[in-house]
């Protein structure tokens, strides 16, 4: 699971959960896999992200270094920053671990890089 994906995962379909966002990450195995850097894509994707959620997630798995807590208005001109965002969004992968719903504490295991978001019938809204 990449952090770009984590940025759009929620557990709000759990019964009794209001927002279920963001999910906390507990990673036991994190890998970095090289992906071609595409500044146009990174510039386009940043405004669509919840930046603070990305910042917290990156720091929680030890990859927050050099990532500002808030974004400067002209971030697209800062190529070093775009490269750091590229790495944290697309290259860092949580291979094993789990995600935790912030409201219910329900855990979702991540195995082989794939989060298991399946719920039992009794858990669904």
């Amino acid at each position, binding site marked *: *699971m*990449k952090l*770009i*994906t984590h940025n*759009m*995962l*929620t*557990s709000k*379909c759990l019964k009794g959960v209001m927002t279920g*966002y963001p999910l906390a990450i507990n990673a036991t195995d994190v890998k970095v896999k090289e*992906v*071609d850097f*595409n500044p*146009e*894509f990174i510039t*386009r*994707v940043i405004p*669509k992200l919840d930046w603070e959620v990305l910042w917290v997630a990156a720091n929680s798995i030890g990859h927050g270094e050099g990532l500002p807590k808030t974004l400067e208005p002209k971030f697209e001109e800062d190529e070093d920053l775009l490269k750091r965002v590229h790495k944290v969004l*697309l290259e860092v992968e949580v291979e094993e671990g789990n995600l935790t719903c912030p409201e219910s504490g329900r855990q979702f295991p991540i195995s*082989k*890089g*794939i*989060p*298991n*978001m*399946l*719920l039992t019938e009794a858990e669904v809204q």
Partner: protein
Amino acid sequence: METPYQNHIDKADFDHVYEPAEDSFLLIDALEKDLEYLKKKNPTFCLEVGSGSGVVITAFGMAFPQTFCLSTDINFKACVMSKQTAAYNKVNLDTCNMDLMSSFTDNVFDVIIFNPPYVVTESEECGGCDITASWAGGTKGREITDRLLNMIPKKLANDGVFYLLLIEENIPDEVVQIMFDYGYKSDVVLKRKVRNEQQLVFKFFR
């Protein structure tokens, strides 16, 4: 669009995951036919629901290196295979083991693709997590599709497009009406008769 290589897959794995067939390739052909339209959209996020072997989303990713591709499947083995197919073809794909697209935040996806379990079966047959889930569609072959249609207005970006494969037995006119009631226009992108099955690819957009 190019057809992804799948020779990395052990044939025995297709006992557990739907093997790409005419319907998968019709969907790829439909996306190819719509290539110019999709390129103009310059999609940021594309999601395939129920990606199975991953052949469709990988073909999409190969044609759109500037798009981040995601896929879901209720079958964990299918998730693993989708990821492998993408990696084998150098496509950057992330995969979630999920019921349809129920755990994503709202209005993110610029493109959503679904080749549903469309075979008309008894209701009891559909709703599992194994290979049966790849084809068993329950009443009208629509039980899973109708659940997904219901999520489209929430999960699809406002200017997004949704591609759906159906067969005649699914009563496509009813699907068009359901989507019309949700505020979507529709087009048939491509249709093909495969043995005795009339397959159609629709697209829905605002």
